[in-house]
């Protein structure tokens, strides 16, 4: 890595310069390693100039791209109106915004002015524009942005400068950059550390923030026992499979895909969309269902939302009500099988009148609520009765008892668009239906269309 080596070099040369007794006025530029010798102080007005010496800017103009021309226009046409840095990004890529475009803008800014004028505003603007370009999770982009800061200039040179918050705006900007990194949960690099050391020095606010990030982030990285990947599968069947295994959390549960999404064209020429149906059931649930009393109904309920970061998927349950305690049938123990004189297997019960002591009695748990059994779950492209009946008939192949159990569909209307007033006037009658609650969609959420 170049960065650590550069850091080492800077430190060495700093030492040497101090040793030689000359003030470190001419510094090493970030690109290339030109060290201006103390003897050539009278070389003003040339291409390479130290940052902190004020002088007239007279850069030569090699061929420029369109973007650079835009930047030039912006600085020269200041009196024509306020052109913000945001517009730079807007003009760079109008349709598709990619990482390459973003990098290009940053490069253009860095190369335009050796003094990096307005770098603080530029960095703030870039931070705001990052989500649009889709690079907010990319550590290399942050490092590149951090590179915009001029090196060595912002470092405090004596104890007074160190005491008094040297270059407060720049330090705040650095802290904000790291803050955005922290908000998106991105772990900084060793390159970040080297850059921060080069730019701000070891005891600065950004460096402190970096140290705090590096203390906490590794501890929190694996804090979630059920992490959701950042990139979810786009295929609805794969997404359904992932979310159902997530809900079930049972290694024995098996997923069955009852129907793949497809489009059929019927005889009349109409397009019939067949949605996907993915179900999950474990062997325990299957045996529970086999023991279900056919006199009692089972309910198909839904849709229930499941949020995976920013996507919401909906699932449906097949469940039954809990059996009231009066009707519960205790399994009878055959006294011969489970008696005491047998030795092939040890006695399952002892014929004693003693109960468990209070200190060892962990049978009561507040969270242990008596609930009815859930027999299966599914996710479907459309949440209407037709699709779910298909699911039930698919389930019936493995659980034949479903044919005798009455199935009641307790479906709520799925997520719909918020109705405007005109639509509301046209369809008041649709709202009055039993057992249905109209759900309002919260705004600003991306959902899998049901």
């Amino acid at each position, binding site marked *: 890595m170049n960065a650590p080596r550069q850091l080492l070099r800077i430190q060495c040369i700093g030492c040497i310069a101090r040793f030689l007794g000359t003030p470190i006025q001419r510094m090493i530029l970030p690109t290339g390693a030109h060290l201006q010798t103390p003897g050539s102080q009278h070389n003003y007005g040339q291409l390479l100039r130290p940052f902190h010496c004020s002088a007239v800017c007279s850069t030569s103009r090699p061929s420029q791209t369109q973007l650079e021309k835009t930047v030039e226009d912006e600085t020269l046409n200041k009196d024509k109106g306020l052109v913000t840095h945001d517009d730079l990004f807007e003009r760079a890529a109008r349709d598709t915004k990619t990482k390459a475009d973003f990098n290009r803008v940053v490069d253009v800014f860095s190369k335009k002015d050796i003094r990096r004028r307005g770098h603080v505003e530029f960095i703030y603007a870039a931070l705001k524009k990052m989500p649009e370009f889709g690079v907010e999770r990319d550590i290399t982009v942050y490092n590149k942005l951090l590179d915009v800061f001029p090196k060595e200039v912002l470092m405090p040179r004596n104890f007074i400068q160190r005491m008094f918050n040297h270059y407060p705006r720049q330090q705040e900007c650095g802290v904000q950059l790291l803050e955005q990194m922290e908000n998106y949960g991105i772990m900084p690099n060793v390159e970040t550390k080297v850059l921060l050391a080069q730019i701000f020095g070891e005891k600065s606010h950004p460096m402190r923030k970096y140290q705090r990030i590096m203390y906490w982030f590794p501890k929190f990285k694996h804090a979630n026992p059920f992490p959701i990947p950042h990139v979810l599968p786009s295929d609805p069947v794969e997404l359904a499979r992932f979310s159902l295994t997530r809900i079930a959390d049972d290694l024995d549960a098996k997923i069955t895909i009852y129907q793949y999404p497809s489009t059929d064209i019927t005889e009349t020429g109409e397009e019939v969309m067949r949605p996907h149906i993915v179900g999950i059931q474990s062997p325990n649930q299957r045996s529970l269902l086999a023991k279900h009393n056919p006199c009692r109904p089972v309910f198909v309920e839904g849709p229930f939302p499941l949020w995976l970061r920013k996507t919401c998927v909906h699932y449906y349950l097949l469940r039954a009500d809990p059996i009231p305690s009066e009707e519960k049938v205790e399994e009878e123990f*055959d006294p011969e099988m489970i008696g005491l004189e047998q030795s092939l*297997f040890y006695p399952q019960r002892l014929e*004693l009148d*003693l109960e468990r*002591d209070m200190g*060892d009695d962990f049978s009561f748990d507040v969270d242990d609520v008596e609930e009815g059994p859930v027999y299966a779950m599914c996710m479907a492209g459309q949440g209407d009765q037709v699709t779910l009946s298909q699911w039930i008939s698919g389930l019936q192949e493995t659980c034949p008892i479903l044919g005798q159990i009455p199935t009641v569909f307790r479906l709520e209307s799925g997520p719909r668009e918020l109705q405007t007033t005109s639509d509301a006037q046209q369809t008041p009658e649709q709202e009055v239906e039993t057992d249905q609650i109209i759900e309002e969609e919260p705004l600003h959420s991306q959902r899998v269309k049901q």
Partner: protein
Amino acid sequence: MSVFPYPEISKEELEELHQLVQPVEKFFNEDVDSKKIDHEAVIPPETLNGLKELGLFGIQVPEEYGGLGLSNTMYARLGEITSLDGAIAVTLAAHQAIGLKGILIAGNDAQKAKYLPKLATGEHIAAFCLTEPGSGSDAASIQTRATLTEDGKHFLLNGTKFWISNGGWADIMTVFARTEVVDKDGQKKDKITAFIVERAFGGVTSGKPEDKLGIRGSNTCEITFEDTKVPIENVIGEVGGGFKVAMNILNNGRFSMGSAGAGMIKRLIELTSEYAGTRKQFNRSLSEFGMIQDKFATMALNAFVMESMAYLTAGMMDRPGVPDCSLEAAMVKVFSSEGSWTCVSEALQVLGGLGFTKNYPYERYLRDCRILQIFEGTNEILRMYIALTGMQYAGKILTGKIKEMKKGNVGVVFEILGKKLKDLVVKTVDFGLTGKDGVVHPSLTESAKMFEQNAAHFGSTVESLLYRYGKTIVDEQLVLKKVADVLINLYAMTAVLSRTSRSISIGLRSHDHEVLLTNTFCKDAHFKNNFLLTQLQKKDNDANIKKIAQEVLAKRAYVCSHPLDRTF
């Protein structure tokens, strides 16, 4: 049943036993090629014939039916010799200890007269068919069915049994199947019935022999019954009474594992000490090194304890009446199976690399030994049985007292406090084993005192366990495991004390060596018991162990991150 004095057999019986033992030993030393049997996974017919001629196929069958009619003690003695070859021992045991035992103990005279003569001579071989693919330790889940035909004269048997020893050759099988029984209330229930099934009845097919790790000479295979017609005269006991028959059969066969293990270890000691005495390293023979000596001492101790326990149990079973020694037999089985495994391992270790090769018999003995912990009731199941039987018995006696304690009866609380204080101050426990009228010989006083102390401590621990768990102790397997271990150690100590007292009193050869072995074993067992009992007094790791197991089993994998993983 009293444990002191150690059971003896009369002089005549001992002479008769010697007469029997000699030719058997000769046969096993000369005519049995264990290596070939293990390699080819089959016992050659000449060997089988030799065994038949020696009468080893009907050791416990009464003489009127053509067997040797020997007692349990003598059966155990012969078991010491047959154990020299694991496959032969298992074949014989499967034939007589469980295969024909059903007819022997629960069959009626007609069945005995019909089947026993041919079984005793070995012309027909017997097998015991209880285990099924879905039911190993849990015999209540048997699926094989026997339905009565319309004419009421036959049962039709349908089902599969597997891991049946002698399954490929057996002509007579004791099969357990479910039958529908109408009980006193008029309700129809499924109960297990025992049947004598001949291969000649038809519909009996054996699968191919299983390729096993050890006892490869023994034939183990799957047997399928398809509409096999069994006449109702072949029901052992009564219809629906099969369970009791199964339990009695299995309980009866267990004790012989002690003597079999002891015989094998004695043989191993001979072979291994030969090697240790002659091989020299660092200018000294192996037998001079402490760790090797430790191994030999372990082997000697184990053999000693095993045979003491086995013959004590056999002697108790031989007493008149039908004493129920199932608990003691289970304890013998657990101790012997685990003791044999460690001893064979140690013997192999003495030989080092040589022991690992097939040129020496050690690896064969090791492989044959492994099955001892699994068949005839896995050790885990038997430990539960031992502990729970004890708990049931103790519970009945202590229930009243514990209930009083829980109610908080002031008088009882004071009484208990007083007793605890007295125990702290004055630490004597006297059950009457030693002293003027004691049954234990004065040379063993110290060991006997240790035993008494353990027993008293164990008593109070059991009381506190019942107080804590009550009847839900059935679910606390880790606790019951420790209880069972303590019980096994206590029984072992009893057996050795009893045997050594007798040896000193009558002046057997090398009784001073026996005293040494007894004292050593009792001291070791005393410490082990103390450790287990301390763990039982709430100072154990059980909760942590359960938690670890839960997390590992929830993920079905090792849970920790790799030590080389990084987070940044």
